[in-house]
């Protein structure tokens, strides 16, 4: 009796191991195979020759510059906003909280359409900008605005959460020691939340770099002006497959680098809550 009991226990354990292995393997393969397929469809020669394609260079340059500009704006405006928002109680705070999160669930095409309705040539505000000779829609500025709209929640949510959880006794101590609120923020709050802020910034950069739906709706798809890398991939799929493949691989590499930076930034993060 005892040997049959231990036998069934052994079978059960083996079955559990097999079940767990199948589960882990299937999820991993589902996520990894499409990425691996990209690398299998190209050769180093094809990849490097496509890299010199002016359209690829232009899309790469435009994507990187607009994403960096978007990120800088999000950090410069978003950091003080998140700090003030997390530290104050004001009427409608819940609504603002919801609005911060809205772009995360809103389809990017809808975001782009909404931006077009507001800032387009005949838009609610756009018509006045147009009259002043400042067109917004279908310009590089529109690319940046679409990226900010779609990607900023990644930074704002992270910064807001960090500031809410931060132990305010550090700030109070600095103030009693004679530091002004700005000095306290720059020398205490910011360094102690830097790891989390960097990870939020990197995620924002990644999201801005990969932005497609809002950009094509609001900024269009003009090479050198509004054609970012994801848009060039879309065009490449129709007309130049090698170019699409090369840009896709570039985006995969950049995304990997982003995830590694996020992991490194948060690895040594100490909780100061």
């Amino acid at each position, binding site marked *: 009796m005892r040997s049959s009991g231990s036998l069934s226990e052994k079978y059960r354990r083996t079955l559990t191991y097999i079940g767990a292995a199948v589960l882990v393997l299937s999820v991993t393969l589902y996520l990894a195979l499409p990425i691996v397929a990209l690398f299998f469809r190209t050769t180093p020669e094809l990849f490097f020759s496509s890299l010199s394609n002016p359209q690829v260079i232009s899309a790469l340059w435009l994507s990187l510059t607009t994403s960096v500009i978007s990120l800088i704006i999000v950090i410069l405006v978003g950091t003080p906003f998140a700090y003030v928002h997390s530290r104050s109680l004001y009427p409608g705070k819940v609504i603002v909280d919801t609005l911060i999160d809205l772009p995360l669930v809103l389809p990017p095409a809808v975001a782009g359409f909404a931006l077009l309705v507001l800032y387009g040539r005949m838009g609610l505000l756009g018509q006045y900008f147009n009259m002043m000779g400042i067109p917004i829609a279908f310009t590089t500025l529109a690319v940046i605005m679409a990226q900010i709209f779609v990607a900023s929640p990644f930074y704002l949510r992270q910064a807001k959460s960090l500031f809410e959880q931060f*132990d305010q*006794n*550090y700030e*109070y*101590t*600095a*103030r*009693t*020691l*004679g*530091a*002004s609120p700005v*000095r306290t923020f720059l*020398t*205490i709050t910011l*360094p*102690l939340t830097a790891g989390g802020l960097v990870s939020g910034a990197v995620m924002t950069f990644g999201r801005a770099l990969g932005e497609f739906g809002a950009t094509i709706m609001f900024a269009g798809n003009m090479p050198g002006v509004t054609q970012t890398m994801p848009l060039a991939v879309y065009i490449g799929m129709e007309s130049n497959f090698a170019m699409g493949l090369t840009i896709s691989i570039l985006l995969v590499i950049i995304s990997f680098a982003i995830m590694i930076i996020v992991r490194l930034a948060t690895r040594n993060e*100490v909780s*100061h809550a």
Partner: protein
Amino acid sequence: MLDAVFQRKLRDFDLDLTFSVRPGEILVLMGSNGSGKSTTLNTLAGLVSPDAGCIRLNGTTLSEPLKGIHVPIEDRRIGYVFQNAAVFPHLSVSENIAYGLRARGLPRAEVAECVGNLIRRMNLDELSTVKASRLSGGQKQRVALARAIAIHPSLLMMDEPFSSLDLESTRAVKQLTRTVVDEMQIPCIIVTHRVADCHEVGDNVLVISSGKKEWGGSPCDMPGNCTVCRCQSDSP
């Protein structure tokens, strides 16, 4: 000399206190959890504004709401050691101590001299370059105390400074506090839960209950039937 008369409406009760602390005197503030001890310190520090009353330190009015007086926190020159010491974990021991001096714009040489003196005095010589996040509880309290007195405060306040310390560290921090207060001749307020602390460091005791004074006087005269004493004699 600290003269405090203030009222503040809190969620569960009204904080309504009147007390004075002389230079060189340590007032031990006692009371059960949520009785308003920390809010009292925060009000004196300027982190919380009183609704009414007047807080005067060495003849200068720090808060008087009815006259619209509220001296900013950073201008009060109050050394405040928080319950968890709140040493800045990303800074070294010497940078922690220098923080207030740098914030006040003192010349670099003066900062270095003052920090060096305090490090020697607090027996922190071997730890001066160590990041504060790597210190023990007792070491953190010593750094917090050194940092608080570095700015030559007019008032020293410590919120439960011994609560997380072992016996040896508690004794060391008490001795240091006593010496500092005696030498600098500044008023000092220590919030604590333990009656023993009153006898060991306190010159006077103020027991508060639901924001009101329950008893005040010398530790030797402390009656056994006040809220805090009853709680402690009931505990095993």
